[in-house]
């Protein structure tokens, strides 16, 4: 533990602290110097310094430290280098609880926003931990559960915003983690809570450190492992909830700080307990001062929490290859889940369900007066021209995303892979978002090109990260989280700045079939048909590739060419599907699992089954979205995520 060995840590701290201090002087130096003078009368600059700038600075330091500490503890007790308040869904849970309270029980907010947020993050955290506990806190399961809970909360919150646009403006800002203060109440509330929790953590530091040992050794030392884990996790949860309730969602600091500390040489847990909060505090201080410079004195404001996510997620991608993660072996995705081997029956059942739902979607629902009923006669003819394109588009998009999911799961050997989880859908959406800023009314083919380019770029990142680790689930999933968070941050920043394009983007992300016309639905249907046929044609490769390169080559498969072709198909399927239902639908994750659960194990059977299942779920989601809140409408992608996410959590629990 000599000083020289810790050289990189001090260097890193200095690299963050010096510019942060410099920027602080640049931003507030004049007013700070003026503090020595006597005040005469009302002095707005001094008031702002004393009640806004200084509490903001202290809040940044405290929140950063608390999140860094929470991340370090979570990573230790869960033995999971990917654990953090962001990746475990804690922040999203708190945000959702606040949205719900604002809309349906405003009285609760008078009791205290903090309590409401605390309850939300507690529920989310317990849900994720409970799922993780069933599988001995396996890192992948835990982070996947966290991601799913995060996305679920995010989808619900987004839906509330869409339905109550005008009321929830403030949640946009809060959700972005604005550090702006107007008195000392936040730092004064945050400080003591942080210190008490820090003290408790330090009291538990020794036993917690021993959790790093293998279970057998730790047990031999007389440790009660489960108790220790739960109390450690509880402390981290409390730290997170306190920050989230008082400040808002500050993305990724809790993941970045311990990771940076570890990479700079804080190998022992006790060292990380000191360095992770320190790095977290400096990181948030640095970011916040930079945000203030960028925003200028009156030029609106940027929520710092979204900016940390903007920087945090790509930084994580860069750090990823250097992380030493013990990957658990995954069962090959073709492995039987149930002994029941499906023949024709489950496939026919899926097809029948799809047909029934499509017809239901076309003729049944709310009549113009608002009552439920069957459309008949002239009205049916008149309204069919509005409805048919939407149902057709949902069907096509469901098929394409499902097929993309099957391809990706088989190619990466990762049962959690899907366009949504890997961030490929997010990439497609970002491509379209970029287009939104370049042109005013892009054509359909231009949109497809942009979506495809975005999806391809993300896939390339994933493949290059994945290749080195043999598609280790942790890395690939983490890369996906990072990309989803990046997209989220872009949307939050846009919304907070009041840019009207944020709403267009939000609509895309929600994945409504609202904008679909026959001119877009027909090409989508044709694309779905052609791409699905092409994928089926290559079905044999999909059965063989998971066996590994030597075996596949032995069976005469040109491995590299096959992978390239199949990955390209996945990109095209994802881009076309995402254009219609957005990046959140979860269809690509859900549908292949549904097919497998029904016993459709061979590649072609799984593809067809998944395509039917995906299309059926999305057609149903579209129907629910059109009818539930009539005449107001909910986007199909979000509705499908609300169905898909719990289903996934169930799947996760069962295994």
């Amino acid at each position, binding site marked *: 533990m000599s000083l020289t060995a810790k050289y990189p840590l001090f260097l890193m701290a200095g690299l963050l602290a010096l510019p942060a201090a410099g920027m602080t002087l640049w931003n507030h130096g004049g007013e700070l110097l003026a503090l020595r003078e006597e005040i005469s009368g009302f002095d707005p600059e001094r008031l702002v310094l004393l009640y*806004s700038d200084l509490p903001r600075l202290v809040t940044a330091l405290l929140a950063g430290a608390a999140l860094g500490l929470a991340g370090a503890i979570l990573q230790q007790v869960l033995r999971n280098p990917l654990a953090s308040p962001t990746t475990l869904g804690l922040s999203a849970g708190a945000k959702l609880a606040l949205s719900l309270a604002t809309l349906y029980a405003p009285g609760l907010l008078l009791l205290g926003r903090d309590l409401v947020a605390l309850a939300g993050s507690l529920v989310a955290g317990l849900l994720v931990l409970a799922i993780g506990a069933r599988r001995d806190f396996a890192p992948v399961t835990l982070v996947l559960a966290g991601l799913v809970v995060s996305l679920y909360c995010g989808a619900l919150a987004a839906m509330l915003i869409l339905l109550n646009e005008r009321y929830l403006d*403030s949640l946009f800002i809060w959700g972005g983690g604005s550090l*702006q203060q107007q008195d000392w109440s936040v730092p004064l509330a945050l400080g003591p809570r942080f210190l008490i929790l820090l003290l408790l953590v330090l009291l538990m530091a020794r036993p917690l450190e021993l959790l790093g040992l293998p279970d057998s050794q730790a047990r031999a030392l007389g440790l009660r492992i489960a108790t220790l884990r739960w109390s450690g996790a509880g402390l981290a949860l409390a730290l997170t909830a306190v920050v989230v309730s008082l400040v808002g969602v500050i993305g990724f600091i809790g993941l970045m700080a311990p990771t940076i500390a570890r990479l700079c040489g804080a190998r022992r847990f006790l060292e990380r307990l000191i360095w992770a909060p320190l790095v977290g505090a400096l990181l948030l201080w640095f970011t916040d001062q930079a945000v203030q410079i960028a925003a200028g004195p009156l030029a*609106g*404001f940027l929520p710092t929490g979204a900016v940390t996510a903007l920087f945090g997620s790509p930084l994580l991608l860069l750090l990823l290859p250097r992380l030493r993660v013990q990957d658990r072996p995954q069962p090959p995705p073709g492995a039987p889940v149930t002994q029941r081997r499906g023949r024709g029956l489950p496939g026919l059942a899926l097809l029948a369900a799809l047909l029934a739902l499509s017809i239901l979607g076309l003729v049944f629902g709310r009549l113009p007066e608002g009552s439920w009923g069957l459309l008949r006669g002239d009205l049916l003819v008149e*309204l069919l021209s509005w409805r048919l394109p939407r149902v057709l588009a949902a069907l096509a998009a469901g098929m394409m995303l499902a097929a993309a999911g099957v391809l990706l799961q088989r190619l990466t050997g990762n049962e959690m892979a899907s366009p949504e989880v890997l961030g490929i859908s997010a990439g497609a959406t970002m491509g379209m978002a970029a287009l939104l800023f370049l042109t005013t009314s892009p054509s359909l083919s231009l949109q497809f090109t942009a979506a495809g380019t975005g999806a391809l770029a993300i896939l390339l990142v994933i493949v290059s990260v994945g290749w080195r680790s043999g598609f280790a689930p942790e890395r690939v999933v983490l890369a996906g989280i990072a990309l989803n968070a990046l997209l989220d941050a872009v949307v939050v920043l846009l919304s907070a700045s009041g840019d009207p394009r944020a709403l267009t983007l939000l609509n895309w992300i929600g994945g409504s079939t609202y904008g679909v016309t026959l001119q877009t639905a027909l090409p989508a249907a044709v694309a779905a048909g052609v791409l699905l046929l092409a994928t089926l044609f290559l079905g044999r490769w999909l059965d063989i590739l998971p066996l590994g390169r030597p075996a596949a080559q032995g069976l005469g498969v040109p491995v590299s060419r096959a992978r390239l072709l199949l990955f390209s198909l996945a990109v095209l399927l994802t881009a076309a599907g995402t254009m219609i239902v957005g990046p959140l639908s979860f269809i690509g994750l859900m549908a292949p699992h549904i097919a497998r659960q029904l016993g459709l194990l061979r590649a072609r059977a799984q593809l067809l089954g998944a395509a039917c299942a995906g299309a059926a779920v999305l057609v149903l989601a579209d129907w629910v979205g059109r009818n539930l809140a009539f005449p107001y409408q909910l986007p199909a992608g979000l509705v499908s995520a609300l169905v898909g996410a719990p289903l996934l959590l169930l799947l996760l629990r069962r295994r």
Partner: protein
Amino acid sequence: MPSAKAAASPRIATLDYGLANTLLSLGVTPIAVAAAEGWSDWVVEPPLPSEVVDLGVDREINLELLAALSPDLILTTPYVQSLRSRLEEIAPVLSFSVYNENKRPFRQAQEATLRLAERLGREAEGRALLDRAETLFAALSVRLHVSDPGPLLLVRFMDARHVRVYGGGSLFQDVMDRLGLRNAWEGPATLWGFETVGVEQLAPAAGPETEIFTFEPVPQEVLPTLGNSPLWRRLPAVEAGNFSILPAVLMFGMVPSAMRFADVVSRALLESRA
């Protein structure tokens, strides 16, 4: 008599509160309005007749419902331009731009009113509406000139920390110019005439002479939190007791909203000086 008139009036659907409000002032009741549900919170006066159909959120109105209503004419703004081609499949579309880079919404609203009145064959009613507005402004500005109020700061609370403050390019600014009132906010404002800022950034504009006005609805948890904040309480205007919550006024409205704003603000100013 009313039934004969109803038979003569065209079936008009509108996607914008301001246009719906103008229609009502011209004596025409629209058959459908987007987000009619929120009318009583955001526009209030005149009340929307209960037979008006709610079309859903303005950016995603229910097209099936609109088609089933078979309107003769659809009124929109460029804000929902993306829907235009689809609306045209249902009925002729008339679009009015009031908030744009000219940043003179009141003048644009006057022109839009005349254009709309002409299209409906109600030129007389249109001109009468504009005259009523001018008469109101003239009368109020005389009374306000006598009482000589301080500058105004118009805000809408996003939460206890953030406000939208209205400046150049807002309907409020144009009306204040007509009434001879001074806006305390001289900072930047977007195309829509407002800027989102932290409460403390109001400090330079909130001197002891300034009147701070906000409008219903105010988010519920805002007021208790404001009461605890030195930054808010020690704003000289707030310390002097110059803060009040006024009834709702549509911030992106047209001539009727301008009149309502003039009325509501003048009443508050004249009462506080009385």
